[in-house]
């Protein structure tokens, strides 16, 4: 029996709890706490696997019928961030991502390459996801781990760069948001914002609070899921609308999708719950070693997505995303679960536009349009990564992807370059050029990222 046999024989619901248990012990968590959190992690995976199976078994046949009867060819199902995170943590890179990220962060802090101490262990999954796609592409574990590391490196510097603007706008002193998904859009949002200012669009103001009050009902994930299920079901049954059974199916699909939208994140909460002790261990470990110099505490961008401008912009972007999905000819993604993740997509754009809803929606439209193409392009790798992580895919050759992180431009950029060692070298060049110019012109860079003269780092 080889190590590989043991790994695949145990499966993620047993293997990951074992690894998490020992990791927790290393980070000096008590045995009782470590044991309980390890078991919870296994339970989280069981829950996610159940809902993912339910989702695919319901939506996949309906989507195929829709393709058959309408010609709307969207065979790549958006399984959303809950599935993406589970695939990331359950893959081979996911098993190592916590020590990798802690080490990378610690070294970067010592070398003065970052001022962020990223204690948001849950969101290390973004790095594991990028690494997992590279592993699926190359079958090389070292390249996969390297990809996770360089993703973390880039995101940490993005977190530093945006920290003054984020702290000022969201009134969260001492915090940065090194979030692998939200931060990825900053380099795109900045030039578009500059262009929109030249067109004087910053003068047009919409009131986010009244948008939220008026349209809030339709921004609710369960309502989005319900409507989506009804529409896909309706289109799939276009030819048989005179039969009662068709209508039963349409209504059932609507309800199923509403259920998925509600239950899926709850399953992820179990995983997060299980990670809490390790997060605290990592936090204690890193802070004890970082206290000789001022640092930002890196947290989840979830602490900012309650902002009215972020909520309002994301609500407006839901129908825009659906229109884009239908009219962009190269797109093959059927958006579903991740229609609920759009606030995370714009949350770090908001400080750049200073809460301007119109500008944020325009920037969001561009990144969703590009994101659909990226998500389509990465879907074969995404599906392969899911299979490698032992998630059961329906047999009818369904492909999967998601907005978060299947449509993530930073993930895409890394995956595409990681195809060869030249690409790896190029990635490191990009990182060091980025780091050098940011550190050299820190104040100016932070101001274009939305910080005021006073908030930007003093030179």
């Amino acid at each position: 029996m080889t190590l590989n046999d043991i790994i695949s024989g145990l499966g993620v619901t047993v293997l990951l709890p074992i690894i998490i248990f020992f990791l927790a012990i290393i980070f000096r968590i008590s045995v009782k706490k470590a044991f309980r959190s390890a078991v919870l992690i296994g339970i989280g995976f069981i829950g996610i696997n159940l809902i993912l199976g339910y989702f695919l078994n319901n939506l996949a046949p309906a989507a195929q019928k829709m393709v058959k009867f309408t010609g709307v060819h969207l065979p790549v199902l958006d399984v959303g961030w809950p599935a993406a995170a589970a695939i990331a943590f359950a893959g081979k890179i996911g098993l190592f991502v916590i020590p990798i990220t802690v080490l990378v962060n610690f070294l970067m802090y010592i070398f003065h390459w970052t001022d962020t101490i990223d204690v948001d262990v849950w969101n290390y999954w973004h790095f594991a996801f990028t690494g997992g796609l590279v592993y699926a592409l190359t079958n090389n574990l070292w390249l996969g781990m390297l990809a996770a590391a360089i993703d973390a490196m880039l995101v940490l510097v993005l977190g530093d760069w945006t920290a003054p603007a984020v702290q000022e706008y969201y009134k969260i002193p001492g915090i940065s948001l090194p979030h692998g998904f939200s931060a990825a859009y900053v380099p795109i949002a900045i030039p578009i914002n500059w262009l929109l200012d030249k067109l004087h669009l910053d003068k047009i103001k919409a009131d986010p609070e009244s948008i939220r009050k008026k349209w809030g009902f339709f921004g609710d994930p369960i309502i989005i899921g319900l409507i989506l299920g009804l529409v896909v079901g309706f289109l799939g049954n276009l030819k048989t609308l005179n039969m009662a059974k068709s209508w039963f199916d349409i209504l059932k699909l609507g309800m199923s999708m509403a259920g998925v939208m509600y239950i899926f994140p709850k399953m992820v909460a179990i995983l997060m719950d299980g990670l809490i002790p390790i997060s605290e261990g990592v936090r204690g470990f890193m802070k004890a070693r970082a206290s000789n110099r001022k640092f930002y505490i890196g947290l989840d961008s979830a602490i900012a997505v309650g902002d009215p401008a972020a909520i309002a912009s994301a609500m407006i972007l839901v129908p825009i995303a659906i229109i884009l999905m239908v009219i962009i000819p190269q797109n093959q993604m059927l958006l579903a679960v991740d229609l609920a993740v759009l606030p995370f997509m714009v949350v770090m754009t908001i400080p750049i536009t200073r809460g301007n809803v119109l500008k944020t929606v325009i920037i969001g439209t561009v990144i969703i349009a590009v994101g659909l193409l990226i998500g389509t392009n990465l879907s074969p790798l995404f599906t392969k990564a899911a299979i490698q992580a032992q998630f059961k895919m329906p047999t009818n050759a369904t492909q999967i992807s998601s907005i978060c992180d299947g449509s993530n431009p930073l993930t895409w950029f890394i995956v595409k370059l990681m195809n060869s060692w030249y690409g790896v070298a190029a990635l490191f060049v990009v990182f060091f050029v980025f780091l050098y110019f940011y550190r050299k012109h820190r104040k100016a860079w932070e101001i274009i990222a939305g910080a005021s003269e006073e908030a930007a780092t003093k030179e």
Partner: protein
Amino acid sequence: MKKLKILVVCGTGIATSTVVSRKLEEKLSERGYEVETRQCKASEVESNLEGIDIIVATTPVPENLGVPVVRTLAFLTGVGEDEAIEEVISKIGGDVQK
């Protein structure tokens, strides 16, 4: 003894609010309170206020809800956790018996 009902709010109702809920349950039960937490998104606060004694949020929430609000990142950063717990207790006032 009345249960202390806390609405824990973050951007998703899942991510950071799970961490904060566990912390509140742990820290407040150490001080002899019986705690029940409910989690929701910032945009759902108004429809989840029924029976709630206090809101603890990691993200901006609407104003004038008629329920005391503590907005804090202490349970995420690990800085000032005890002060945040004191703030929660002081804002509950005399309504809830220990």
